[in-house]
C-alpha cells in the first residue's frame, strides 16, 4: 500500500492535482457561492482552456528539452492571418483556417530547424521569433488595413460551421474550447506514454547523447515538437478569432510565460526529460481558478501577479523536493 502511494506521489502531476483541489476549496470558501455556481465554474474552465491548449504543446516540448517563447506571438499571428485572409483577401473561413494552420506549422518548423541546426539555446532563438512574429503581425495588420483590431468574421462564408466547431458554448456556458483542450491533452498523453514517439521525446530531453547512440533521431523529434507547439498556439488563435469574430494584433501577449508557468506548476522540469501533460492540464486549471477566483472573491486585480509568481516559486520548490525524495527512495 505505502509502496503504491509512494509511486503516486513520485509522479510529476500529483502535486499539481493536490494543489488544484486545495485551490478549489480555498476559492469556494473565499468567493462563496459565485465560485461554486455553474457560471463561476464555466468562467474558470473557459479561462483555463486556451492556456491549457498552449500548455499541452509547451509541456511536450519542455519534456523534449526545449523552450518556445514564441507561442504567444503565434496566437497573434494565427488570429490575424485568419482575419486578413478572409476580410481583406476575400477567402471564406475554412480555406483561411487551413492556410493559417499551414503557416503555423511552417513557423514551428523554422523554429525547430533553427534550434537543431545552430545548436543555439531555444530560449534565445524563440525569444527572437517572439519579437519578429509580433512585429510582423502588427506591421501586416497596419499595412493592409491601417488598423490593429479587425472584426467582421461573422459575415464571411463558412462562419456558421466554424462557429460551431471553434466558437460555440454547447453546454451551460461551457465552451467548445474545453473539449479541444481535453482532447489535445488526451492525445498528447497517449503519444507520450503509449507510443515510441513518447520514449523518444523523454530520451531527447533527458539524455540526448544516449538517445542518439541508440538511434533516436533527436533533431527530427525536436522539430516535430516545435511544430506541435506552434499548432497548439495556432488552435488558440483560431478559437479566439472565431469566438470574438475578429482579431487583435496584440492577442496572446505574455501567454508564453503563462504556459510555461502552467507546465512548471504541473511538475515538468525545466531541464527536460521529466514531466507530464496531465500535470500541465492541472497547472492551467489552477491558473484559471486563481485568475477568475480572485475576481469573484472581490480581491483587487493587482494581487493576481503576486499570487501567480508566488505559486510558481512554490511549485518549483515542491517539485524539486518531491524529485529529490523520489530519487533518494529509488
Amino acid at each position, binding site marked *: 500500500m505505502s509502496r503504491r502511494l509512494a509511486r503516486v506521489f513520485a509522479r510529476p502531476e500529483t502535486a499539481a492535482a493536490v494543489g488544484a483541489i486545495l485551490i478549489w476549496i480555498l476559492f469556494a470558501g473565499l468567493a462563496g457561492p459565485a465560485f461554486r455556481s455553474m457560471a463561476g465554474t464555466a468562467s474558470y474552465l473557459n479561462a483555463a482552456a486556451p492556456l491549457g491548449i498552449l500548455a499541452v504543446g509547451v509541456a511536450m516540448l519542455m519534456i523534449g528539452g526545449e523552450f518556445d517563447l514564441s507561442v504567444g506571438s503565434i496566437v497573434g499571428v494565427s488570429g490575424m492571418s485568419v482575419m486578413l485572409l478572409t476580410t481583406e483577401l476575400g477567402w471564406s473561413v475554412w480555406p483561411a483556417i487551413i492556410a493559417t494552420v499551414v503557416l503555423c506549422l511552417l513557423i514551428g518548423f523554422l523554429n525547430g530547424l533553427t534550434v537543431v541546426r545552430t545548436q543555439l539555446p531555444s530560449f534565445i532563438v524563440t525569444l527572437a521569433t517572439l519579437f519578429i512574429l509580433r512585429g510582423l503581425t502588427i506591421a501586416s495588420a497596419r499595412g493592409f*488595413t491601417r488598423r490593429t483590431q479587425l472584426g467582421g468574421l461573422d459575415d464571411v462564408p463558412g462562419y456558421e460551421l466554424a462557429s460551431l466547431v471553434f466558437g460555440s458554448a454547447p453546454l451551460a456556458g461551457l465552451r467548445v474550447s474545453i473539449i479541444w483542450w481535453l482532447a489535445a491533452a488526451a492525445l498528447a498523453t497517449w503519444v507520450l506514454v503509449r507510443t515510441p514517439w513518447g520514449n523518444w521525446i523523454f530520451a531527447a530531453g533527458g539524455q540526448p547523447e544516449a538517445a542518439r547512440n541508440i538511434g533516436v533521431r533527436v533533431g527530427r523529434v525536436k522539430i516535430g515538437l516545435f511544430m506541435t507547439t506552434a499548432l497548439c498556439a495556432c488552435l488558440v488563435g483560431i478559437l479566439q478569432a472565431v469566438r470574438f469574430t475578429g482579431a487583435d494584433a*496584440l492577442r496572446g501577449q505574455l501567454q508564453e510565460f503563462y504556459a510555461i508557468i502552467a507546465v512548471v506548476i504541473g511538475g515538468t522540469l525545466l531541464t527536460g526529460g521529466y514531466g507530464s501533460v496531465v500535470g500541465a492540464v492541472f497547472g492551467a486549471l489552477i491558473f484559471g481558478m486563481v485568475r477568475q477566483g480572485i475576481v469573484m472573491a472581490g480581491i483587487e486585480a493587482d494581487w493576481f501577479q503576486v499570487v501567480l509568481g508566488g505559486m510558481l516559486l512554490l511549485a518549483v520548490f515542491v517539485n524539486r523536493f518531491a524529485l529529490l525524495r523520489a530519487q533518494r527512495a529509488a
Partner: protein
Amino acid sequence: MATKRMNRATPILMAVLVAALIAGACGGPSGQSGASSNDSTRSDIRIVAVTHGVSANPFWSVVINGLDDAARDMGVSVEYQAPNTFDMVAMSELIEAAVASRPDGLVVSVPDPDALGAAIRAAVERGIPVVTINSGEDVSAALGAFAHVGQAEYDAGYGGGERLADAGVSRVLCVNQEVGNAALDTRCQGLGDALAERGVPTSVLAVELADPEDSQQRVAGALAADPGIDGILTLGTTGAEPALAALRDLGRVGTVRLGTFDLSTKVLEAIRDGEIDFAIDQQQYLQGYLPVVLLTLYLETGTVPGGGHAIPTGPGFVTIETAQQVMDLTRRGLR
C-alpha cells in the same frame, strides 16, 4: 521511511501555498452582497469595475482614484479589475468572472466591442446595471449599458480647432501618433471641421508613438516643407513632446501655436512657460467617480441623467492660467 515522510511533507508545502494565497486575499475586500437593490443599504452595494487600463498606467491610476474616492464618498464598495496587458480576451474573462459573482453594478471600458460585447450583454441579461466608461460611446446603448461616461472625441477635436482658430492660425497640422485608432481619427476630424468652417486648411501627419526622435524629425520636416503652417494639434503627449522639441530647434516656439490632447508633466510645464497654448484634458477622474455615483443612484432611485445619453467628461482645457493648479492636482493623482 523516506516515502512516508514525503507523504507528510507534500501536504505541508501545499498548506504553505494556500497560506500565501490567503495572505494575498487580505489585500482586498471580499464582501459578497446578495441583497436585491431595493432594500439594500449603501454599504451592501458592491460595484465591480473592469477596464483595459492596468493600474500602473498614470492615466488609469487617476481613474482608479476617482472610483475609490467615489466609493468612500457614497459609502459603497468598489473593486477594480484589469488585465495585465492590453488583452481583450483576458478582459472578457474578467467581466465573466465579475458577472458570476453577481455584483450590484458593473463599470466597463469598451475598447473592442467585438471581443467584449458578449460578456457585457450577458451581464445586462442577468439584470446587472452597466455603465461604460472612456471608450465605447457609440456601442454603449446597443450593448445595454444605461449610461456612458467619457470624452466625446469629435467635440474635443472641434474645441481644439476653435481654440487654434481664435489664436489666429492660417494652416494647421494634426499630428497623429496612432493612425488607424478610430478615436484619434475622430479627433482629427473634429479639428478639421472646426477649422474648415473658418476657412483654415488642415493636414494630418502620422508619427510613431514609440519613436520620439523620429517623430521630432517628421514634424520638423513637415514644417520645412510647408512654412505656412502656423498651428499644430497633437493627439497625445507622445506627439506633443517631440513637436515642441522640433519647434525649439527651429526657433519657432510661439510663432507656431501648439495645442495637444492629454497631460504630462512636460506638457504642463510647457503650458506654464507659455510654449504650448493649451492641453485638451478628458478629466478621467470623472470617468472613475461619476459611474459609481450613477450606479448608486440608479440602484436606489432608478434615475438616469440625460435619458441615457453619453455624459461627456471632456474636453476640459488646461491653459497658462490653470497649468500650475493642475500640476498640483496631478501630483495628488486627481488629474
